[in-house]
């Protein structure tokens, strides 16, 4: 029975990784932009939530509702003012610029919030658990997973059922022809990055409630997010969820054998999947 418990915990952990990765997957799928500052933007959003909680004294869930539009604006401005200038045939400028952005965000957070570890306090719910058949699961991990499924479902609806989603796909296919349809690529990209930052804010809530965070932990979150996106298949949102679950399960299984193996086994699972399916589990039909 301990194995069932381990796997269930791993699946739920995968939900957290999928939340880390969903925004990355969205931005990459639309504009082929690899954002190396994604992990640091999650940490930035966690500090923003904490700041709102501390200053206004509101519940973290209310703080998320206030932080999300702010993060949307930050994402929109970031894309419009900086990232859009790096897009082109050369893939190096976005990597260099977002790498620099990652350092800037980390140091700004160090200046503003010190290097002390922080948590987002959520009260009794933090330790509450529910019985799911033979296993007992924490309420927060369960909420994390449910949020991940909901976020990915919502992003999929947006992508495949709305006029904006059609514009996302059209610009991704062919930006020149998209302009002939009245689509302004720069504006569509800014909206996409804004939406990705809303997802980042949701991810940041669970990051901050489940564990301590400090200004330097962003890059490690980025690696898990990247692995989830890549083994899921670039641009596939449900694939990103599957990728997150695979890494989560591999980590808890490895950790249950020997705690030192937790991180390592996640990375090994990533490499094994790529060895068998080099384009990921759910690759696009064309690229």
């Amino acid at each position, binding site marked *: 029975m301990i194995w069932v418990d381990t796997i269930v915990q791993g699946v739920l952990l995968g939900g957290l990784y999928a939340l880390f990765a969903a925004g990355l997957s969205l931005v990459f799928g639309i504009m082929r932009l690899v954002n190396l500052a994604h992990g640091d933007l999650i940490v930035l959003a966690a500090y923003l939530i904490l700041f709102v909680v501390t200053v206004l004294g509101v519940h973290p869930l209310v703080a998320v509702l206030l932080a999300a539009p702010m993060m949307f604006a930050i994402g929109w401005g970031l894309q419009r003012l900086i990232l859009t200038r790096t897009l082109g045939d050369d893939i190096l400028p976005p990597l260099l610029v977002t790498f620099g952005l990652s350092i800037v965000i980390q140091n700004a957070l160090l200046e503003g919030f010190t290097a002390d570890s922080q948590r987002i306090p959520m009260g009794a719910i933090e330790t509450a658990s529910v019985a799911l058949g033979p296993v007992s699961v924490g309420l927060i991990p369960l909420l994390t997973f449910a949020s991940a499924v909901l976020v990915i479902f919502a992003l999929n609806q947006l992508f495949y059922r709305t*006029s904006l989603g*059609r*514009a996302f*796909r*059209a610009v991704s*296919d062919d930006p020149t*022809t998209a302009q*002939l349809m009245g689509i302004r690529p720069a504006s569509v990209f800014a909206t996409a990055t804004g939406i990705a930052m809303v997802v980042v804010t949701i991810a940041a809530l669970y990051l901050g409630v489940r564990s301590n965070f400090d200004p330097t932990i962003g890059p490690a979150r980025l690696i898990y997010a990247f692995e989830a996106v890549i083994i899921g298949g670039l641009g596939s949102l449900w694939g990103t969820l599957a990728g997150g679950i695979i890494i989560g399960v591999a980590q808890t299984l490895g950790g249950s054998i020997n705690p030192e193996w937790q991180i390592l086994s996640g990375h090994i699972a990533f490499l094994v999947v790529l060895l068998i399916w080099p384009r990921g589990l759910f690759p696009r039909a064309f690229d």
Partner: protein
Amino acid sequence: MTLLSTHGLTAFYGDFQALFGVDLTLGAGETLAIIGANGAGKSTLLRSVCGLIPAASGMIRFDGADVGALSAPEIMALGIAMVPEGRRLFPSLSVEENLLIGTYGRKTQGTWSLSTVYDLFPVLRERRHNPGTALSGGQQQMVAIGRALMSNPRVLLCDEISLGLAPVVIKDIYAALPRIKEGGTSVIVVEQDIGQALRVADRVVCMMEGRITLEGTPARLTRAVIHDAYFGARV
């Protein structure tokens, strides 16, 4: 009444000057054919008009306003729709989504909607849930024309819509042009293949090396005159 005109339009295709002071007019409700050999500047002319290529000098007027400095999305919103060379359907979108995206920058009530486009090209209705790029070349061209019509444009620009298609398919596609005209849309067709273009056009303009070399109604232009304008003086 003149709806669209260019005055002394000069434009470059990369470093290469493709247009040398082109003066062109399109009347309301008129169908104009622009013919000429490969590299004559026809496509550059259309791409300048729809805002994809900036004009180096000269003026583009649409409905009394100077539109030369506007971007492609802004020009599309005014009612100039383009069927680009090579069809350029969006591979991630189904046939129906390709049609719907045509209204993104200009939402209007008018003759053209999903159902009237499907009436114009019935084969598209059966295949509306297929990916746009899974269709035959001729059907893809129908989608590209339908996509441009969905915004109920006042001017429809068609860039080489017969390119790479079988003669029987070209005939089918050109059969749709009179109905597009009936809807009140003015049309410019750019063609290398002059046969179909001459049949549907009210007026013909022939281009060579970035300049207009001949202009007239199809009835008054003989093959020999067109031949000269198309290839230069006969040797």
